[in-house]
C-alpha cells in the first residue's frame, strides 16, 4: 500500500508543473530583487554595483530620512493587533455561525462584505470618517457632547497609528471567519451530537472539541494574520494617499514609495529582501510553536 503513496512518477506529475511555474515567475523575481539590492539604480538607466551599502543606509545611516526601521515597528504592532483582536473576533463569529443559528446564510454573506469591497472604497470611506473638519467621527463626538475629544485623527501623531490600523484589523475579520467556519463545518456532526448528549454546554464543546479539531486551520489563520500584517499594503496605501509619514508608514508602503517615487531601486530591493527574510523568520517561529499534537507525535516516532 505504501508503494502507492511513493509512486515517484505520480509525485512528479503532481508537483512539477506548479513548482516550475512558481520558481520561474515567483521565485526568480525575488532572486533578481536580491541582486538589485546590491545596486544603485534608478530603474531605467545604467546601474552601479555598490555591494551592501544599501543595507547599511536603510538600517543604519538613513541618509534620506526614510525611517524604515520605524515602519517595521508599526507593522509588528499591526500583527499584534490582528492576532489578539481580529482573530478572536473571527473565531467567535465562526463558532456562532457554524452552530446552526438562525440567519446563518445571510450573516455569513454580510460579514464577508468588507473583504469583497476593494480597499479603494474602504480607504476613502475611512478617510471621510476620520476627516477633522467634517468627518463622521468628529461630528458624532460633537453631537454626543464629547466635542472636547475631537481630534485630527490621522495627523495627530498619538492617534495616527491606531486610527490607521483599526480599519485594517476590521477589514479582514470576515476572511479569517470564513476559513474557520469552513473548518468547523468539516467536523463530523456525530461528535457534536455525542457532546450535547453528554450534557456539554456550547462553550465547553467549543473548547474541548471544536478548537482542537480545527487547530491546523487556526495555525493557518495566525500565520496569515502575522505575515499579512508584516507585508500589509493595500488599505494603508489608500488612506495615506501614498504620502509617507513616519507615524503610519509600514514597510510595504515605504518600499513602494522608495522604488516607484524615489526611484531608488537598490534601497527598495533591500527592503524587499528584508521583508522576505523577516516573514521567513516569523513563519518558522510560528510553525515551531504551533505544532499540533499529531505532528509532534510523528516527529517523536
Amino acid at each position: 500500500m505504501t508503494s502507492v503513496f511513493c509512486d515517484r512518477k505520480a509525485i512528479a506529475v503532481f508537483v512539477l508543473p506548479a513548482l516550475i511555474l512558481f520558481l520561474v515567475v515567483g521565485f526568480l523575481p525575488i532572486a533578481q530583487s536580491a541582486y538589485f539590492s546590491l545596486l544603485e539604480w534608478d530603474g531605467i538607466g545604467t546601474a552601479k554595483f555598490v555591494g551592501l551599502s544599501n543595507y547599511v543606509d536603510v538600517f543604519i545611516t538613513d541618509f534620506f530620512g526614510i525611517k524604515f526601521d520605524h515602519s517595521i515597528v508599526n507593522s509588528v504592532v499591526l500583527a499584534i493587533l490582528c492576532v489578539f483582536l481580529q482573530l478572536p473576533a473571527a473565531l467567535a463569529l465562526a463558532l456562532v455561525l457554524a452552530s446552526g443559528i438562525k440567519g446563518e446564510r445571510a450573516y455569513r454573506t454580510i460579514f464577508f462584505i468588507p473583504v469583497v469591497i476593494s480597499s479603494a472604497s474602504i480607504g476613502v470611506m475611512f478617510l471621510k470618517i476620520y476627516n477633522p473638519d467634517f468627518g463622521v467621527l468628529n461630528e458624532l463626538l460633537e453631537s454626543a457632547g464629547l466635542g472636547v475629544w475631537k481630534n485630527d485623527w490621522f495627523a495627530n501623531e498619538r492617534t495616527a497609528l491606531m486610527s490607521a490600523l483599526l480599519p485594517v484589523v476590521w477589514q479582514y475579520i470576515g476572511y479569517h471567519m470564513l476559513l474557520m467556519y469552513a473548518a468547523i463545518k468539516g467536523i463530523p456532526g456525530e461528535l457534536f451530537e455525542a457532546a450535547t448528549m453528554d450534557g456539554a454546554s456550547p462553550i465547553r464543546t467549543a473548547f474541548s472539541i471544536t478548537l482542537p479539531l480545527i487547530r491546523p486551520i487556526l495555525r493557518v489563520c495566525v500565520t496569515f494574520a502575522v505575515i499579512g500584517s508584516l507585508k500589509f499594503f493595500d488599505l494603508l496605501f489608500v488612506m495615506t494617499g501614498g504620502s509617507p509619514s513616519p507615524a503610519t508608514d509600514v514597510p510595504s508602503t515605504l518600499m513602494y514609495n522608495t522604488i516607484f517615487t524615489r526611484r531608488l531601486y537598490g534601497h527598495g530591493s533591500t527592503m524587499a529582501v528584508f521583508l522576505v527574510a523577516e516573514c521567513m523568520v516569523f513563519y518558522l517561529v510560528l510553525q515551531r510553536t504551533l505544532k499540533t499534537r499529531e505532528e509532534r507525535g510523528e516527529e517523536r516516532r
Partner: protein
Amino acid sequence: MNRTKRFGLIACAVAVTFAAGAYAGGQGESKASGQKAKITLWSQFADPKSMDSGAIAFFKALENTRTRFPDVEIEHVGTGGEAYKQKIPVAGAANELPDMFFWWGGGTAEPFIKGNRVLALNDLASDGTLKRLVPGTTDNFVFGDKLYGLPIYISTAQLYVNKELFLNAGLKVPATWDELTTAIVALKAKGIIPIALGAKDRWPAMFWNAILDIRMGGVSAMNAALKKTGPFNTPEFVAAAKKFDELIKLGAFGDNYMGTSYDDSVNLFLTGKAAMIYMGAWVNGQIEADNSPVKGKVVPINVPAVPGGKGSSNDWHGGCGETFFMNANLKNKEQVWPVYKYFVETMAKEAFLAGSGSSAWLSESSDVAKMNILALQIGLLSAKATGFSYWWDQILTGNDTESMFGSLMQFIAGKSSPEQYAQELQTKISDRK
C-alpha cells in the same frame, strides 16, 4: 451535473480563454496591415468626459490631429491618476515605451534622458518650430544643450480670494502683505478658515513654501537652488521659512491643515468655509462650475510682496512642466514629427481656451468671449510676469522630492526650526549633485 462533466466544462472554458488570449496577443503583435502609419500614444488622460481642463484640451487636440492627418492611426491608451506614474517608468525600464507619451520635464524626466529612452528634438525642431514658442518655455525640457520636448501650456499658481466673505468681514481684497495678515486675523475671529491648505497631500504645503521662497529670494535664486547651482540654506530662504511659520502660528491655515487633503481643501474653499486658497489654475473650472457655491464670487490675485523680500509680486510660481516625449527608438521620426508638432500646439491652444493656462506657443488672439473669467484675469496678471519658477516636485528628481517632503512635513508640524529645515534641504538636496 456530475463532477467529471463539470470539470470538463471548466477545463474547456480555461482552454478557450487561453486560445482567445493567444489570438488577441497575436493581433497585438502584428503590425496593422494597410497603408496607415501607426503612432502609439500614452497619456494620463483616460476619461474623455472629464471636466479637467487639461483632459478637455487633450481630447480636443487628439480629435483635431486625427482629422488633420487622416493617413495616420493614433492609438491612444489613457491611464488615470498616480497609476500612470508607475506604468511609464516600468515600460521605460524594459524599453517598451510607446511612440509618444505624456510626461513631465525637470528632474522627473532625468531617468529617461540618462537612459536614452527619449528622442532629442534639436534637429527636428530647427525647422522654425522654436521661433513659434514663447521665450523661456522650454527651460524644463532642455538637458545639457538638447531639447527633448515641446511645451504645451504655462501653468501658474495664484491666490484665489472669496470677495463675498471678505466683504462680509469688512475687508478689502489684500494688495499688500500687511493687508493680508490683517485679513487673516479678522477672518479667523469670525470663525472662517483664512486660507485652505491641504497639507495631508504634502504638495499644497510645498506650494506655500515655494511662493514664500520666491518672494524672499527672487526667482533666479529659487531656480538656482532647484537646479543645484545655488544653495538652499540662504538667509532669504530661512526668512521665508520663518514667514511660513508665522502664518501657521497666526492660524492662517486653520487648526486641521495637517489632516486636510487637497480635495478637502478645495471643498472648503468651494463651500465658503475658507476664504482663500493658493492653488494652480486647474481649479478655475471647479470654481466657475454651475453648481459651485462660489461661482462669480472669486477673484485671483498675486501673492503680495513680502516686506524685506528680494522678490516682487510679479515673480511667478509656475511655468511649463508638462510635455510629450518621443521614443528614442522611433524609426520614422520624420513622419511622426509633423503630427507631434501639430498635436502639441493644438493642445496648447485648446488648453488656453479651456482655461488651463496660457499657451506656450505664440498665436493670434483667440475668441475669449466664452473663456473662463478667472483664466482671463490670471492671463492679464501673468502678462506682467518678470520670471517663473516651476513646481519643486517636478524640477527635483523623485528622490530629492521625497527628501524635501519629509523635511517639509516635519517643519510645518513644528518639529524643526526654520534654520534646521533649510539646512536639511541643503544637506539632502543641494549637497548631493
